[in-house]
Structures are given as C-alpha cells and as structure tokens.
C-alpha cells in the first residue's frame, strides 16, 4: 500500500516537473533573439513571405496560444514536426535517445568502476604513498572539465597513437543492419562481437572523457566515507575475528560508506547527461546532444522542445532510480 502511494506521489511530481520544464523551455526559446523563419529564408525576403511562413508554422499566434496548442498535442503523443529536418520530432528524438543513453550509461559504469576501485585501493593503503598517488591523480582528473579530457584523449589515442575512432558512432563500412537504435545492446544480444568492438572503439573515448571528472568525485567522497567507517567499532570487531583488511573494507565498510556516494552519483549523473551535449559534438557522436546543438543553432523550436522534455524526463528517472537504490541499500530506511 505504502509503495503504491509512494509511486503515485512520485508520478505526480514527475508530471509537475515535466510541465514546469516545458513552460520554461517554451517561453525562453521564443523570447531570446533569433527565429526559425529568419534562418529559413534568404536575406532580403519580403515581409509578405515572412508572414506567410510564420502563419504556416503557427508562429503568428501569441505565446500562450502556441503553448496550449503544443501541449495539447504533446499529451496526445504528437511532438510536432522539426522545422529544419521536416520529420516528426518524436521519431527524431526516439532515434537518437538510445545513442545518448548508451554513452551516458557507459560513462557512468566507467566512472563508478574507476572511482570505486581507486577509493577502495586508497583505503586499503591509507597513509602510504599509494594513497598519495591516488589523491594526486584524482585532483588532476577533477580540475579539468570533460571536454578538455575529450581533446586530450583525441590527441593521445586518436592522433599520436590511433587506437580508437575519433568520430561517429559506428563505422559505415561495417554494413551491419540494426533493428533497434540501441546498437551496443543489440550487437551484444546478437553475439556480434566484431560489431561490439567497433562500437566500443567509437564510444570509449567520449565515455572516458565524461567519466574522468565523475570518477574523481566518486573517489573523493567514497574514500572519505570509507575512512570514517574504518574507525567504527564493528570494523575493529571484524578484525578480531580474523578477517583480512581487504575483506573488511569490502564487506563491512563499503555498504555503510556507499550511501552518500550513491546520492552524489545520482546528482552528478544528471550533470553527465548534460555533458553529453558538448562531448557528442566533439566526437561527432550521433546522439541527442549533438542534435540539440543543431536544433538550437537553427532555432528549430519543436525539436528543441522535444529534446528538452526528454532530458527532463531522463533526469527525473535517474532521481527515481537513485531513491530506490538508496532504500534498497539502507535497511534503516526500508522499515521506516
């Protein structure tokens, strides 16, 4: 019963959040200078032409009226048609979303793996040179933004030592027919490891660029929490039982130390998804973020609106997952 109520509350707040996001993006992109009509017509087009085109896209109506039309269409599943690409926004977004999801999740996994392993290692060797080295590496990773890491990686593994592809999502020469837009997932499910390898060759560098700063944040917070836990009495008791330091860290300290990190990962993951916009551009990766930049440049209003709504939905979903994971991992919360 409680779960149903919690889910219902969550669903309602999600809708309110999305509605708020819809209003903001709708108003903002109409208030800022520049409009799609100016982008479509050659310089020197007549007033009459401009007005005709405006009427065609409904841009001659007031903002409020436009919003009502748009939102009532959205509720019915119609997100409008892209002005520049002349395709339904829904199809465009659904086509690109999987690419961004795969990239962000890959980046998250890499960040959790690197950050977690570094934090555990630093805790095991606390007070030694190993910890010092990890701290220094973490500091450097944190002090540079993701797109600079992207450039550095391109230079290193794309140019100097061309290990990975520096642009795109898949090599066209592969000629592999996908039935879904989740390329990596599909290739794995169909055991086409040659395709997986090619996809990874494209995805690894942008994912790593996104992951490096997040890994450093995870490292710092998790290490701090672990160190505090290591002073707890149940750790001392586990030592007297005969357990090795490494298994004590993994079994006793980690589950107690991980909760603050989990919350942080949730917040940071939304930043990471935001970061895909510029990273996808940098690596010409055909995802939602790359499409968002084009849409903004061309003032493709329906497309921008659609993309922002999807991003907003994604953020609320991430928060939901984090909350659920938190409840699952914290027994004190579960029974409350």
């Amino acid at each position: 019963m409680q779960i149903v109520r919690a889910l219902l509350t969550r669903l309602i707040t999600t809708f309110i959040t999305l509605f708020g996001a819809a209003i903001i993006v709708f108003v903002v992109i109409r208030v800022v200078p520049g409009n799609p009509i100016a982008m479509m017509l050659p310089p020197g087009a007549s007033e009459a032409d401009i007005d005709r085109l405006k009427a065609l896209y409904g841009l001659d109506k007031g903002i409020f009226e436009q919003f009502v039309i748009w939102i009532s269409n959205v509720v019915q599943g119609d997100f409008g048609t892209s002005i520049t690409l002349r395709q339904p926004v829904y199809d465009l977004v659904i086509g690109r979303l999987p690419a961004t999801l795969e990239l962000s999740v890959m980046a998250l996994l890499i960040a959790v793996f690197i950050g977690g392993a570094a934090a555990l290692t630093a805790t095991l060797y606390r007070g030694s040179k190993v910890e010092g080295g990890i701290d220094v590496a973490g500091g450097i990773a944190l002090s540079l933004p993701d797109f600079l890491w992207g450039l550095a990686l391109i230079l290193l593994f794309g140019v100097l030592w061309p290990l990975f592809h520096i642009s795109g999502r898949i090599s066209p020469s592969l000629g592999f027919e996908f039935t879904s837009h989740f390329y990596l997932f599909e290739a794995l499910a169909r055991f086409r490891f040659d395709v997986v390898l090619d996809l990874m060759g494209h995805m690894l560098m942008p994912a790593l660029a996104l992951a490096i700063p997040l890994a450093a944040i995870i490292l710092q917070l998790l290490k701090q929490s672990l160190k505090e836990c290591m002073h707890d009495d149940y750790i001392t008791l586990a030592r007297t039982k005969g357990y090795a330091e490494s298994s004590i860290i993994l079994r006793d300290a980690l589950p107690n130390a991980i909760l603050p990190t989990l919350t942080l990962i949730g917040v940071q993951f939304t930043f990471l998804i935001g970061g895909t916009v510029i990273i996808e551009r940098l690596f010409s990766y055909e995802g939602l973020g790359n499409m968002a930049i084009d849409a903004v440049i061309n003032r493709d209003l329906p497309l921008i609106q659609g993309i922002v709504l999807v991003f907003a939905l994604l953020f609320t979903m991430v928060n939901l997952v984090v909350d659920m994971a938190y409840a699952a991992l914290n027994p004190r919360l579960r029974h409350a």
Partner: protein
Amino acid sequence: MSFLSIQDLTVQLKNGMPLLRQVSLDVAPGEVRALVGESGAGKSMIGKAVLGILPKAARLTGGKILLDGEDLQTLPQKARRQRIGARAALIPQDPLTALNPSRRVGPQITDRLVDILGWKRPDAEKRALELLEEVHIQSPDRVMKAYPHELSGGMRQRILIASAFAAEPKLIIADEPTTALDVTVQKQILKLIREMQQRHGTALLFVTHDLGVVSKIAQSLSVLYAGKVIEETTVENFFASPSHAYSRALLAATPKYTDPEGSLTQVPESVIAAVEAEVAAFDDQVKAGSRP
C-alpha cells in the same frame, strides 16, 4: 600452564611515548582476571595488543604475547590474525556501535565460524540459534533476521556475547562491557557474562574501572597505573589488604552503596605523586639499561 601469558609487553606511540611499560600477566584456563585502573592507565591497550587491534599510532616495541604457548609476534600476519580469531574473542564496550548496521544479526554471529574456521553454513546457523538461547534471547529465529537498529542495547550486548562465545574461544577479552548500558541492564549482562564464562570454562580478561564489578566476577586482578602493573594479586587479598598505597587509595575512593555521598573521595595527591615517582624511576632504570 596459563592460556594467555604476557611477558614484559611494551607499547609505545610512534614518538616514543610509552603506553604500556613492560607489562606481565598470566591468565590460566578458566580464570577470570580483572584489569583495573583509571582512564588512560592502559588497561584497554593490553586487550588491544593481544587481539592485534592496536591503534595505528601505537606500536608494540617489546615483550611477548603467548597465546596457548605460541608467540604471536613470531607468526606471519595472516596466520596471527586467524590464530587470534580462532582462539580469542572480544566483548566490546559499546553494543550500539559494535554491530554492523547494514548487516543482519545472524551472519554477524556466524561469519567467523564460516569464513575463518570453515564451518558449513547450516551448522553455524544452528550453533548461533543455540547461543542466542543460551544468552536468554526470546525467539532467536526472529533476532537472527533482524537488523541491529531494531534491537535494544541490552539485546545487542547479548548478541555480542553470543558471538564472542561462538567459536568456543579459550580466551575472551571483555573491554568494559557494561559501561555503555544503563544500570538495570548492567547487572543482568554481568551475570550473563559470568554464567557463560563458567559454563564454557573460558579464560576471561575483564577490563573495568569499577571495583564493585571486580568483586563479583574476577578471581585475580592487576592494577595499572600509567601503563605499568603496580599490583597483581587475588581478588580476595586485594579487598582484604591491598599492598600498594595506590591500590588502597583506589579502594577507598570507591563509592559505597550505604553512604554514596560521604564515601565519594579522590585518590590523595600524595599517593599520585608517589606512584608517578615510581613510574619515573622505572623509566630511568630502563633508560640506564639496568632493565632489559
């Protein structure tokens, strides 16, 4: 033949400041020895040295710890750890923090049996249920599945006692096991520890600052001051005629139930000065090399 034999144990901080000054004591199988002294006298430090859980800043710089005749310091780290885990156990001071809050109670009792001693899980669980009954816990089945925060402080201390006896250790170190509990529970827990100790014939090193507790549970005691054993005797002799001036003052300073206000006295400064001088003289002897 004593089960635990500590010989000239010296523990120092990294800067050389001594925490334990050539402490020697023996605990025979089935014997209960109390370690008394004021805060900072080093009584808990002895237990920590035996169990291999000295704080990072402290170092064992001299002496031997023989557990069942085996010199722990000569063993490689892993073997030492496992030897201690199999033969000795700790009843910690604060039951509210000594259980892992994110693990169920059952595995926290059985883990040593399964992971260190190689028992089969069902056997270990059966043993844990028996032990929980032994420490007078109602519905042990339910408690095994509970998380620590669902149980009271007294319950948790019972669980920790059960856990300490799980592997039938020959030695248990109880580090002020009743200080964190309220007075009504203290008595029950003390009675329980004594009952368990006698039934299992376990040697017990009981760290406390409460001489009233000592008279109820121990047969022998060592009085510590500034990390040095200044008196070692049987409980009978100690309460009848303590030989050291500090011991006498300590005994006199214990509040009496008949007159709690009037009997609240401090250890006189002259006695403190005398025992301080004794410790300083001992340090000089060590420095001069007339003691090993």
